[in-house]
């Protein structure tokens, strides 16, 4: 044991706190590996020795990696190098490394069962390690590689950073803290500003599919990464609370091969206070609040929840709304009660509503003369969503009606329920026309001439108003079928 090291303690990436003197069991030897992240030889040593943890343990040697990094970096290195052993994080003043006289990393020290040093290897020297250890290390090249200066000497002797010495945006990509686009690095100051006094350790629950815990600090980090202003954080929090509602089943949505994203619709005074776009181009580019709030919610799923595309997210194609899909309802252009009120909240409430859904499909209708004709056009556009023949669907379709279409309905005195019913009643096909490719048991059970509706219930049709004044366009987002994903609304604490 290094001089005076027995009583020193270090944090483990498994959440435990370990006393150096307590690492060693009876009759057990310990292999200490000192390393840090800026040393390529350290990474080589961790990658070669880390997976040998169980094999060494079988032969009476406990592998313990001591990484001169913050805990989160040590945890990431443990994951990246598949270290199957105890990993401890050591911070300044590096008392443990000093006790063992570690000036170069990697440094491997084998402690005998009496705590005395049986052997030391500095840098990567495969032949020496094979002599020292009861398990053979990798025969892969390189078999020898010199080490690097250990901290704190390494840090003190670095040359002053030049203009291109370190690119923090590239660092974010290397960490995997991205959805594929550049992000804002979540420095402690930025995250503290985002939290705005909220308790960073408060948990909103675990985020499927990887079951990472959504502490407010992590949600705030996602909001910073997404580019949110701190003022947006209450909306992000409400959106994350909604998507973690078990009835929303973000677990299924996050891992399915089908394409659903999480659509965030904002209602109430918070829309105007944060300048969310509910008008011209509401579903498109150009508005920071729309794009970053939706992106923050998705980053929570992808990063905190581990639902990264191609990893646990198994979507065959996905869609670009899985980067960000957030907009505000244009309550001012709507003759109807807003979605928030329809879902049971007060006139002045600010809310977010989460819907699992597909990418928007635009619907043009510049010719209909009656509201019923217009409802048919809009409704029939949805006929092809999910599948042209899978009728009825038992999941939510979101219709986003543009201003000119809404005005035609309003002029005729139609309520939102009238539009919903007209869509539901008109979009029907005889069963025989649906007996093609992917379809439902109901289609085969029905008489060939029986009319089958696109939806199993009119309540599957959700209608909101958004978009600019001009242009007879609306859109529909197809359903997230099979996920049993309820529509979830949460109030945003907001004082007007």
């Amino acid at each position, binding site marked *: 044991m290094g001089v005076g090291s027995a009583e020193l303690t270090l944090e483990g990436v498994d959440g435990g706190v370990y006393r150096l003197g307590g690492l060693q069991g009876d009759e057990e030897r310990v292999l200490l590996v000192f390393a840090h992240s800026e040393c390529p030889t350290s990474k080589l040593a961790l990658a070669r020795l880390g997976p040998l943890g169980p094999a060494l343990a079988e032969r009476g040697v406990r592998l313990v990696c001591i990484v001169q990094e913050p805990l989160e970096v040590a945890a990431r290195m443990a*994951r990246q190098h598949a270290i199957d052993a105890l990993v401890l994080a050591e911070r300044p003043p590096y008392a443990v490394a000093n006790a063992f006289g570690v000036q170069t990393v990697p440094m491997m020290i084998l402690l005998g069962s009496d705590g005395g040093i049986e052997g030391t290897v500095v840098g990567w020297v495969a032949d020496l390690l094979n002599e020292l250890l009861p398990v053979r290390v990798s025969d892969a090249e390189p078999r020898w590689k010199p080490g690097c200066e250990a901290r704190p000497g390494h840090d003190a002797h670095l040359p002053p950073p030049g203009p291109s010495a370190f690119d923090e945006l590239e*660092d974010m990509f290397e960490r995997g803290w991205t959805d594929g686009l550049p992000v804002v690095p979540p420095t402690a100051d930025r995250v503290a500003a985002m939290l705005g006094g909220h308790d960073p350790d408060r948990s909103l629950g675990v985020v499927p599919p990887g079951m*990472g815990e959504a502490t407010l600090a992590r949600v705030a980090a996602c909001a910073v990464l997404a580019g949110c202003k701190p003022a947006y954080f209450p909306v992000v929090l409400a959106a994350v609370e909604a998507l973690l509602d078990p009835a929303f089943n973000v677990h299924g949505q996050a891992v399915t*091969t089908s394409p659903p994203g999480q659509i965030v619709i904002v209602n109430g005074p918070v829309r105007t206070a944060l300048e969310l776009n509910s008008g011209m181009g509401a579903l498109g580019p150009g508005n920071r609040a729309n794009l970053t709030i939706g992106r923050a919610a998705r980053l929570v799923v992808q990063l905190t929840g581990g639902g990264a595309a191609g990893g646990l997210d198994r979507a065959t194609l996905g869609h670009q709304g899985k980067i960000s899909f957030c907009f505000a309802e244009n309550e001012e252009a709507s003759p109807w009660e807003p979605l928030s009120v329809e879902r049971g909240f007060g006139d002045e409430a600010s809310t977010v509503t989460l819907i699992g859904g597909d990418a928007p499909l635009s619907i043009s209708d510049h010719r209909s003369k009656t509201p019923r004709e217009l409802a048919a056009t809009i409704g029939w556009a949805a006929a092809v969503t999910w599948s042209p023949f899978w009728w009825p669907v038992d999941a939510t379709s979101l219709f986003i009606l543009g201003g000119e279409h809404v005005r035609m309905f309003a002029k005729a005195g139609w309520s939102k329920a009238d539009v919903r019913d007209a869509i539901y009643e008109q979009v029907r096909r005889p069963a025989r026309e649906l007996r093609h490719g992917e379809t439902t048991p109901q289609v085969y059970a029905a008489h060939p001439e029986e009319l089958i509706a696109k939806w199993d219930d009119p309540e599957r049709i959700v209608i909101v108003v958004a978009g600019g004044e001009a242009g007879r366009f609306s859109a529909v987002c197809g359903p997230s079928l099979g996920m*049993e994903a309820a529509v979830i609304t949460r109030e945003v604490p907001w004082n007007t």
Partner: protein
Amino acid sequence: MEYVSPIDERVRQPEPLAQPTATIEGKTVALLDISKNRGAEFLDRLELHLHDRGAKTIRFRKPTFSRPAPAELIEEIALHGDLAVEGLAD
């Protein structure tokens, strides 16, 4: 530069896998229907093969393929089955 990680960096140890059984003869195999379309038909065929090899079977069904099985159902399977077979949904 130090950052606040958006990721839950805690390393979780995977549950150890049960040891494979040497034989299925006389064992009770739990067959979990995950409610995916036509999955039960596949399990029907599998059940016949298991019976041919001397295994007993017990059938379970989870409410939907798109969510993890309820804890009570997992406990029931563990209580009544020596082995379990389930599929993965897409």
